[in-house]
């Protein structure tokens, strides 16, 4: 991994800004749910923040993202407006999807969040098609498919990787390996130790990186995205990470050994990056405090605006089913 391009100090600060936004946003979602004000299924990505925060600085608004139910971190990192996200989480008409999609179907094409799916692995075939669209448009766009380790064992993984390789499409398949497929450990799901090894079976580049390390993650993403932009085809990146809040929020996580969880939390990558920024003199604590306070204000404003907005009119049941309303 040492020959990957490394983020500059400025880029590291940008990665931290994205990561802390995701973390603070996640914590606020959980707080609102616990208070009973927000009612939604929620798949927290707490612990996985560094991955999209390091990937997205290499992507533009018109690069495509297809992610999954555990995907708010990907979208926040890509620039999804928080006010539209919160209103959607709250099921309000001011939400990005007018409250019709919810947590698992957040969509915002202006920032490239094209599809969020509730089906394990289904981000991949659609990202493959967006890759085909990008190739035809010939504007050096790329498509990013996010998915978890569990999705590596569904048929869509095989079909999509092979398809993207055959047609040399500009697609980055980003497996965020948090070591558990719902409640089942990777050891019980696969005989390979690294899912990236499967890339060889498709004639595709594949790498495993420490997704919690911004240097490695940024470098691998930049390398893969540049390859895609330059017409060199798709890449499978397996980013090793961990999720702190189980599968679905409320999952007690009995299947995760206590010492594994404790070790992961002790190595929480977001405060670790903060400390690194301070230790290396990239930013001082007071400046980071100010940045974080500003993010909290933005999040709070998004939350309050969401609650103040109306629910969608029942007439919405007939709208957007087809291009034209059908009685």
């Amino acid at each position, binding site marked *: 991994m040492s020959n990957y391009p490394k983020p500059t100090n400025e880029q590291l600060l940008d990665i931290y800004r994205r990561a802390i936004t995701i973390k603070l946003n996640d914590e606020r979602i959980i707080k609102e749910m616990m208070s009973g004000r927000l009612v939604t299924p929620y798949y927290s990505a707490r612990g996985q923040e560094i991955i999209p925060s390091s990937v997205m600085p290499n992507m533009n608004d018109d690069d495509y993202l297809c992610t999954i139910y555990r995907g708010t971190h990907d979208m926040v990192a890509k620039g999804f407006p928080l006010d539209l996200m919160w209103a959607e989480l709250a099921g309000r008409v001011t939400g990005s999807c007018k409250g019709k*999609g919810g947590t698992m179907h957040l969509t915002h094409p202006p920032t490239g969040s094209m599809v969020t799916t509730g089906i394990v692995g289904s981000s991949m*075939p*659609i990202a493959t098609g*967006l890759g085909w669209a990008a190739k035809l448009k010939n504007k050096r766009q790329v498509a990013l498919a996010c998915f978890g380790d569990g999705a590596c064992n569904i048929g869509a993984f095989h079909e999509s990787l092979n398809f993207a390789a055959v047609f040399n499409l500009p697609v980055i398949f980003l497996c965020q390996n948090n070591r558990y497929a719902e409640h089942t450990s990777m050891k019980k799901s696969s005989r390979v130790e690294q899912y990236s090894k499967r890339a060889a079976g498709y004639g595709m580049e594949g790498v495993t990186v420490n997704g919690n390390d911004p240097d490695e993650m940024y470098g691998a993403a930049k390398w893969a995205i540049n390859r895609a932009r330059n017409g060199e085809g798709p890449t499978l990146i397996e980013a090793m990470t961990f999720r702190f809040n189980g599968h679905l929020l409320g999952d007690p996580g009995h299947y995760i050994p206590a010492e594994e969880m404790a070790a992961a939390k002790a190595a929480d990558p977001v405060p670790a990056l903060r400390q690194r920024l301070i230790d290396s003199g990239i930013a001082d604590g007071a400046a980071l405090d100010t940045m974080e306070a500003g993010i909290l204000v933005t999040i709070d404003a998004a939350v309050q605006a969401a609650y103040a907005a109306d629910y969608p009119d029942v007439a919405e049941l007939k709208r957007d089913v087809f291009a034209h309303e059908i009685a």
Partner: protein
Amino acid sequence: MEKMNMIQAINRALHDAMEADDTVLALGEEVADPEGGGIVGVTKGLSERFGEDRVLSTPISEQAIIGSAVGAAIGGFRPVAELMLMNFSTVAMDMLVNHAAKLRFMSGGQTNVPMVVRTATGAGLGTGGQHCDFLEAWFAHTAGMKVVIPSNSSDAYGLMRSAIEDDDPVIFVETIPLLFGPMETTLEKVPLGKAKVVREGSDLTIVAYALMVHHALAVAAELEKDGLSVEVIDLRTIAPWDRETVLASVAKTGRLLVVHEAVKEHGVGAEIAAVVGKELFGKLKAPIDRLGAAFCAVPFSKPLETAFVPNPASIGAAARALLA
């Protein structure tokens, strides 16, 4: 007017659509010319004319075919994806039902999926239980999906042009036993959602589509000899279906028989019967009847396969019973 079979008519529609609009794409197993231009030649000549970037012969990967079409569609293109046979849609159902049909609604109208899924089916060729089912009711039951089944070359051309221009996903069903016979063909667009009265009559309405339209017309000609006047409606678009035309016809005749090749149970005929029964309650001169395939897998043995699907004899008997 020129003589064309349905293969040639759909092929012409694809050529004309791709010529008229650079965003129209085609993909599927063996659709490009080096692989034959489709198993019966529906996509012949497309890759030679428009290139193998726009016309993809794909691996045998139905999820990836439909998923790629969905992605290309939300990325600004109008893909025409082929699922070689309708039964193969079963392995792509997640992409069809959870994604193609629902993305517009779930995104609050921010994304839409202007794609066509071409697929072929139809009993009569001894292909048995997994190669010739009519599964249109599944898709008609899915909000966001349109379903089109032409019975002749003119409608095949016209409906394909309209399906490609439509901003919603459309399942376009090619009935295999109807593909090969040449007929006079008009090359004009046919709107989706509009049925066609193909024979006027006053005593009984038969609503049918695909091969069953031809059987219904044969029955109507036969019954005319006995002074019985049968109106035949070719539904053409299954979802959304043309209530107006069907209701106007049954309001006139007072009797309705719905005939389709799909199994009768929970089928399209049940939906039509329910709507007509409610709207015209009290005006019907006889109970509404439905005919469909037997409630079993498509059988192989010729006598079984013949008895499995409605035929002119069974349709004629049902029609006479309603008129008795």
